[in-house]
């Protein structure tokens, strides 16, 4: 698939409340292109609840239900049950939550909905912080990153949500990134036609949260994949396949770039380089990525 093959129709209207250079709106545009207008969306508290803009207007041209922070998947379960009762089989139910509403607050409802076999798509757009409330740490924040609640850099590593979800042995789970629109579109399109619970996680580099210039959103996503800090994969009926650059990295066909190239360009890691370089912490981050890929090779190659 090429960029030219993606549909022209838009369900995200211009003139919304997103920051300039926002990766979430970019993801939303692609997701709406893949799902089409026959979709009901459930949004908990996250940046997207703000992007919808002010009452009595909204920027989303599809039905959206706003719900409490922890209840995205539970709300989607209810919508799906109602549609089933009404006999509307071709309507897609989409739960769209941030990493705070998925990794930390919404994990219990999400796990429950997947276990019940709810027929819906859950998309987590992961910007590795609670950016809506002003950049606090979340379970997805990487080691060493500055946030307003981890002033000297986070002291713990992030958890691997993709593998927590895969442990539910659901029909479809995938990880993708906004910098690869064909990959993202293809995965959402594929998930649409599968029955049962589907989970897709999108890496969304956030300019104000990660402290980089707003025109570099796409570069940050590409570098995250090329350094191995993020992996593109899909899990389908028990089979794990890596996609794109991540596949080449897994098969040792290309070398991973050193993680320093990625973190050096983000202000949230600037305390590791100024006033002097903190080699211990940078080595710890690199070592963690090395171990992750070693584990991927053992399990999935």
């Amino acid at each position, binding site marked *: 698939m090429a960029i*030219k093959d993606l549909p*022209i129709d838009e369900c995200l209207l211009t003139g919304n409340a997103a920051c*300039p*250079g926002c990766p979430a*709106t970019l993801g939303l545009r692609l997701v709406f292109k893949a799902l089409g207008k026959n979709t009901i969306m459930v949004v908990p508290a996250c940046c997207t609840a703000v992007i919808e803009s002010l009452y009595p207007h*909204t*920027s989303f*041209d599809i039905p959206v239900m706003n719900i409490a922070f922890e209840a995205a998947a539970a709300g989607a379960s209810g919508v799906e049950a109602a549609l089933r009762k009404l006999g509307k089989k071709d309507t897609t139910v989409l739960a769209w939550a941030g990493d705070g509403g998925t990794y930390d607050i919404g994990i219990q409802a999400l796990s429950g909905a997947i276990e019940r076999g709810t027929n819906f798509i859950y998309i987590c757009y992961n910007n590795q912080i609670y950016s809506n409330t002003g950049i606090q740490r979340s379970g997805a924040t990487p080691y060493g990153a500055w946030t307003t609640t981890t002033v000297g850099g986070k002291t713990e590593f992030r958890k691997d949500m993709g593998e927590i979800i895969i442990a539910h042995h659901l029909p479809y789970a995938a990880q993708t990134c906004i910098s690869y629109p064909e990959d993202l579109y293809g995965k959402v399109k594929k998930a649409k036609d599968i029955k049962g619970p589907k989970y897709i996680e999108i890496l969304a580099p956030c300019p104000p949260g990660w402290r980089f210039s707003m025109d570099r959103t796409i570069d940050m996503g590409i570098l995250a994949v090329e350094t191995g800090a993020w992996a593109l994969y899909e899990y389908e009926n028990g089979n794990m396949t890596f996609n794109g650059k991540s596949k080449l990295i897994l098969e040792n066909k290309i070398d991973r770039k050193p993680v320093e190239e990625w973190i050096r360009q983000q202000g949230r890691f600037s305390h590791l380089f100024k006033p002097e370089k903190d080699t211990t912490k940078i080595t710890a981050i690199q070592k963690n990525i090395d171990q992750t890929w070693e584990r991927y090779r053992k399990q999935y190659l």
Partner: protein
Amino acid sequence: MKKYEVVTSISYPKKGAMGKTGSWRVFRPIFDKAKCVKCLRCWIFCPEGTIKRKKDDSIEIDYDYCKGCGICANVCKVKAITMEREAKKK
């Protein structure tokens, strides 16, 4: 547009729900049609959807809503889009 009679508050879709967001812009994207190779990277990577794709795959920028993030200029491989400051120093 169909209006619904329910007790809860409902918002209805509207283009420019936050007003003309083009006024947020500091840098303005300038598109050079002669250099464009119609790869559509700017169209797909525009977070706002303000770059309109026409039927013949040429593009048009909607300055009423463009927030001026500069992603289009950054992803363009042939440098057909450049960013220029809106207000010039006198």
